[in-house]
């Protein structure tokens, strides 16, 4: 069962056909528990038996209150941390550490300021063990899609905040991973730039069709981008609701934000988050 029993599909959103969901689950998380030790000695339960499944090619947005363990989940998926209990698998194989099948975009662009944009975005092709033979032309395409053509030889500080974050997305995709993980990628951008970046991300995603798990605080962003929005409870994090977003793509901010479906879903999520 890819959509496990604890997941409630909401009546408003039409549930995806179960057969296709079962056939192509890329991520399977079952009973994930994560405990963090703290300085005070009282350990914090960040994730409490979390179950989650993500289909191949799906765009999933994870929303929840601050400190609900969203980022913890992402770190587990990225192989940066280990779960204390439960099983977590990517394409059928247990996640035991960072994998070249995963690309990560952090809250900050985290570009290396001493490298050019090109050196930054091709970093995943140059570091790590047993990298695939250099395939740089797809990266050129990605840069073009991300609107960064002509900026290859610039340094990150010569780019705007939005461009830096786009470069970070290109970097995360440059080694052609199966899964793209994004942790509040546009949190540090202003509202207008953020909206623009959402449209850009959608465009890049439509062109690459990767599986995406995106963490966000913004309900609008989650509904605008996601095929499915997963709502998490306050700490200890559990999934309290999953909502499918049935809005046609490509979505356009001016139309989507006023769409009854968007409004309904956003209200629904807001009520869930406000308890």
């Amino acid at each position, binding site marked *: 069962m890819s959509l496990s029993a604890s997941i409630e599909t909401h009546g408003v959103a039409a549930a995806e056909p179960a057969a296709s969901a079962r056939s192509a689950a890329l991520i399977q998380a079952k009973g994930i528990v994560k405990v963090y030790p703290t300085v005070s000695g009282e350990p914090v339960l960040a994730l409490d038996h979390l179950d989650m499944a993500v289909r191949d090619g799906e765009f999933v947005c994870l929303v929840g209150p601050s400190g609900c363990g969203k980022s913890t989940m992402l770190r587990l998926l990225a192989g940066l941390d280990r779960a204390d209990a439960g099983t977590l698998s990517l394409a059928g194989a247990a996640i035991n550490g960072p994998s070249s099948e995963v690309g990560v975009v952090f809250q900050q662009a985290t570009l*290396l*300021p*001493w490298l050019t944009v090109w050196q930054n975005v091709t970093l*995943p092709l140059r*570091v790590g063990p047993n990298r695939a033979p250099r395939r740089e032309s797809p990266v050129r395409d990605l840069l073009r899609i991300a609107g960064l053509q002509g900026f290859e030889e610039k340094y990150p500080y010569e780019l705007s*905040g939005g461009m830096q974050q786009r470069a970070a997305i290109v970097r995360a995709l440059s080694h052609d991973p199966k899964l793209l993980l994004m942790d509040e990628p546009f949190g540090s951008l202003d509202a207008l730039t953020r909206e623009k970046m959402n449209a850009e991300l959608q465009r890049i995603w439509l062109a690459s069709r990767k599986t995406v798990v995106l963490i966000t605080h913004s309900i609008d962003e989650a509904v605008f981008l996601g095929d499915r929005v997963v709502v998490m409870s306050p700490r200890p994090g559990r999934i309290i609701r999953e909502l499918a977003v049935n809005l046609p793509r490509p979505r356009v901010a001016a139309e989507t934000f006023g769409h009854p479906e968007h409004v309904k879903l956003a209200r629904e999520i807001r009520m869930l988050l406000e308890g």
Partner: protein
Amino acid sequence: MTDIPHEPSALDLVAASAANAQSLRRRERWVNTGIGIAGFLALLLLWKVLVSALNVPPYILPAPEDVFIALWSGIAVSPSSVLGFYLPLWSTLSNALFGFLIGASLGLMVGSLMAEFRTVETALMPYAFALQSLPKVAIAPLIVIWCGFGDGSKVAMAALLAFFPMLVNSFAGMRSADIERIELMKALSASRLQTYRLVKLPSAAPYIFAGLDMGIVYALLGTIVAEFLGAQEGMGVAITKAQAVTDVAGVFAVLAILGVTGIVLHLTVRWIQHSLIHWVDRGQH
């Protein structure tokens, strides 16, 4: 397409204001240089007036012109003359630079190892602290006993004094590396060496250059101290020789040369730093 010739566009205004700011900066630089020169001349004048008004004997404080004569007599000779500053300066400078290279490289190596491996840090930190708080000049007599009166003790002293600022700074610099950048390398399954080369070393670069800046001046100091304790040649020897015959103007002249040398070394490090660290690291983002 209407063209309004007298209405400056916003872009023109921006360009004009940028040009204006640049010319202001240039003017400010000239004014500062002027103030510097004027201050120096005023200092010379004050020196001269005090020396002649208070009748200070030349073995306490020579008049400025005596120092200039001593300077000139050391400069206006053939570079191979034993009377000139060139031979002792070369001896001091080559020993100081050689020692600096050794000390700074070792400092960078040990500092990196300490930052990279907790075990090395735990094992070495107490000694680093102990030696750091020890006035290293006090070790000089020991160094001379071990390495003799030749170049060896000068190089060793320079290396010793350049070692510590480099050790401390490279260690602090490596540890200051942005945690997100290290996480990124981790997410990319980068090797330890790749993370060191691509993230930690460049992150530490500003610290390392601060260490080099300190280290090169300390290396010069170390060499001079070693020369005081016994040497055949060098600027330290030139000072003790002049001191022996109470040629205070001669001592001043050597000090002036050493001062200029120190400034040149410092500026060289700064220049290399500016041409190497071209990026603007705002840490985050």
